[in-house]
């Protein structure tokens, strides 16, 4: 469906499909590599390994400013074709939350040249797969087709870059679809509501605080004109990245791109993406969501931390490693302390969303076993973090985690769509092809001291919001 793949839950579903729902552990890397480039949760940035398996990624620009990335994978005559726009929910005008995502849905409604659902019909007829997704920083559209159909879908996608045609009789039902999507993803689920509230509380000034799908009352007011205005503000070849991954080489890519996207005019100049910056946070915030429906309480905390783009030196890489040591599966500190040793949690973990244009989130979470108060669980969780800050991490932990992260970059080469997502997400969050290529080396270079420093500097309660998900009966706050 045209729909965003932005929530933790999407991630959960994938694991569930793989039959590993309650035990994330070994799946963490692969699952992240598969789906999370498009997810706001736990995005790892697997990259190509600079040595042995030299993946030949090339990059060029068309005259109209469209950036093109080519990732050859000649094993099967299939190509993944993606267009990523440098626009996401954080680029919306305040009061119109959900507009980037609403427009993504409307992009399937036809153009002057190819009215109605013609594009989707053609994709279905040739046996292609298509979808689209929206995040805080990017909006992307893709088709996966056999090689001989590539030019055709490129022609359609190039047309959709500037030719969108909208009427109220398609816009209004689609707005209802989005309202249902919001109900399904968020309003049905107290845990999703808590995650939304945590994000809103974490960002006091930056638009990352808004939900990607939008607030209910604001989605209701989105209309045809606001969608078209937004489209005209951001959809132009010089604000997009074309990613072609699969059975083609740079030369073929150049020819096809010139024939299709090359004809799209550069419509306007795009201003730098400067969003309001977060002030230095000073107060630990607490939120609590009490709902009769909650059968399994939980605790999660978000810290405001640098992203790959904003981090200095290899701060982001250190946070990446820290998230694994702290909460990446069963060998992690949190799992071991809370689930195994103390036996007070049913699960526990951490994630870091490094792929973001601006200051981003690092999260720790845990669910108590029956009879354990959230306050006690939180105390135990804080002790684990304090221990890392005081005593640092071991060389052995560093080695294991680095091995896993670096291996994930090799596994990611098995999947052209994964690679396309990695590059697309990186390039629309302020990174370069080289930075993706060099990522494994930067991971290798991180020292235990840097991980400890990252924990000390960034896992500071003043930078955090802690959320409790409870049933109303258990609300009384037991402070220890």
């Amino acid at each position, binding site marked *: *469906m045209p*729909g965003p793949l932005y929530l933790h839950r999407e991630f959960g*579903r994938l694991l569930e*499909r*793989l*039959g*590993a729902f*309650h*035990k994330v552990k*070994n*799946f963490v*890397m*692969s699952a992240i590599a598969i789906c999370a480039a498009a997810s706001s949760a736990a995005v790892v940035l697997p990259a190509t390994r600079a040595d*042995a398996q030299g993946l030949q990624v090339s990059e060029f620009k068309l005259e109209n400013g469209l950036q093109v990335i080519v990732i050859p994978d000649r*094993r*099967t*005559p*299939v190509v993944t074709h993606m267009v990523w726009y440098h626009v996401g929910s954080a680029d919306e005008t305040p009061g119109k939350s959900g507009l980037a995502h609403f427009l993504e849905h409307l992009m*399937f409604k036809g153009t002057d040249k190819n009215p109605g*659902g013609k594009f*989707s019909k053609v*994709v*279905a*007829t*040739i*046996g*292609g*797969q*298509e979808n689209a997704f929206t995040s805080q920083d990017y909006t992307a559209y893709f088709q996966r087709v*056999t090689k001989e159909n590539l030019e055709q879908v490129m022609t359609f996608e190039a047309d959709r870059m500037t030719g969108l045609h909208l009427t109220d009789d398609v816009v*209004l*039902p689609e*707005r*209802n*679809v989005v*309202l*249902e*999507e919001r*109900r*399904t993803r968020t*309003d*049905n*689920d107290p*845990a999703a509501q808590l995650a939304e509230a945590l994000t809103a509380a974490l960002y006091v000034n930056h638009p990352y605080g808004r939900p990607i799908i939008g607030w209910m009352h604001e989605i209701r007011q989105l209309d045809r004109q606001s969608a078209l205005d937004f489209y005209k503000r951001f959809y132009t070849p010089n604000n997009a990245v074309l990613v072609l991954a*699969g059975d083609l080489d740079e030369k073929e890519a150049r020819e096809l791109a010139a024939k299709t996207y090359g004809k799209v005019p550069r419509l306007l100049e795009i201003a730098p993406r400067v969003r309001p910056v977060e002030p230095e946070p000073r107060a630990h915030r607490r939120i609590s969501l009490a709902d009769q*429906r909650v059968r*399994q309480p939980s605790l999660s905390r978000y810290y405001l931390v640098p992203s790959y783009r904003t981090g200095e030196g290899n701060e982001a890489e250190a946070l990446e490693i820290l998230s694994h040591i702290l909460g990446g*599966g069963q*060998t992690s500190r949190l799992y*071991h302390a809370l689930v195994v040793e103390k*036996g007070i949690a049913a*699960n526990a973990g951490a994630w870091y969303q490094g792929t973001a244009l601006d200051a981003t989130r690092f999260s720790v979470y845990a669910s108590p*076993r029956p009879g354990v108060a959230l306050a006690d669980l939180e105390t135990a969780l804080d002790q684990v973090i304090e221990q890392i800050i005081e005593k640092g991490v071991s060389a052995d932990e560093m080695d*294991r985690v680095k*091995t*896993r992260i670096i291996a994930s970059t*090799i*596994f990611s080469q*098995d*999947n052209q769509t994964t690679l396309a997502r990695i590059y697309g997400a990186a390039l629309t969050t302020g990174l370069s092809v080289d930075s993706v290529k060099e990522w494994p080396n930067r991971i290798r270079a991180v020292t235990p001291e840097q991980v400890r420093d990252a924990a000390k500097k960034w896992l500071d309660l003043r930078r955090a919001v802690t959320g409790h998900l409870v049933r109303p009966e258990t609300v009384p706050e037991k402070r220890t």
Partner: protein
Amino acid sequence: MTFGAFRGMRGIVKGLLMALALFSASGAADAQIGKIERVVTPAGIELWFVKDDTLPILSMYFAFEGGASQDPADRAGLAYFTAAMLDEGAGDLDARTFQERLERRAISLSFSADRDTFRGSLRVLSEHRAEAFELLRLSLNAPRFDQEAIDRIRASILAANRRSQNNPDEVASLRWFASAFPNHPYGRPVKGDEASVSGIERNMLFAYVKKNLARSNLKIAVVGSIDRDELVRLIDDSFSKLPAKAELSQVAEVTPQSLGRRDVVDLNIPQTAIIFGSSGIKRQDPDFIPAFILNHILGGGSFSSRLYREVREKRGLAYSVYSHLATLDYAGLFLGGTSTRNDRAAEALQIIEQEIARIAKEGPTAEELAQAKSYLTGSYLLHFDTSAKVAQQLLEIQLENLGIDYIERRNKLVNAVTEEDVRRAAKRLLADSKLLVIMVGRPAPLAKANGG
């Protein structure tokens, strides 16, 4: 197969999964994926293997037939629990040491269970294959099932199950299967419930392994960079010591009960999650492919199905609406679902029922059939563009008994389907189909249900 995993997946994700799981392989693919070798090891274990040296990795998928349908009646969730326990320590290695050994070589080893199978997968850099197969061998042949790990995994399963009580799709799916299959293993929850999971004990895990993990019910598919002879040796190391024959309890062929019933499960949410279903068709049935095409047109995996158009595009009633054929080993099912705001749930259900009745009566148009065939044949190759996907396909083809040449034949089978075939399938599947409908939420009063 694999419909133990069904719980209202949405949109294209669902579509992809269905295509993969149900229809298995796809057309012109065989030329592209390298030669499929059927290998029999000295110990007599059969595996399907594709050698591919493009990347220094190895993907293996395997399955033991049986799965959750082998759970004792009062211990639903045992297969699932066992799957969660197999990598929690084995031989001399306790859980932590075992996990660290996996991590040290970036080995992904995992187990899962669905209604009809107990599955495993192994993904590893080729250079670490020896360690990977050693850990696999230990997990299959010498699991420890330490009490500490049992208690921990039990807590985690129970917590996940409690969380799912807020997931309307999951609640609806559980209720649907419970209502459709009373007194049959398919009616019991794959992940168990509070009481059954609480009662699972250590000796039961050992008993499950002993009865179910055998050579007679094992299928294996491997794709990747490894020498054939070495692979054969590693496979025998891991699997040859398993019992020759599985001791499976017999599972009865079954058809869904309670058709015509509409049950509402109260959950205080703004939407109503609807799951509907009736009898379907089994994978080996000669009408399976016509029926699959029929379902593709009605509610299958592209943005052009009738349900998608009527429920979502025209009326904006739902984000997701779908139908699919679930081919369990002992039952064929037609299932579908959607989620819509409470005050329009009745309308959404009515439209779905109308569309089912319409296609049952009229069949598809010639254009729809042509387009469906074009989609299904054209997209087949997309299921083969990674080595992991190829291995998964090869396993499904074995489990469904479709033959090693299925990949070559598959698109021809699709192309041979006529309008008449689809009409016949529509009559068989949907003509007097009363649906069992489960609605989870607070739907506004419905029109009177037909029969009970």
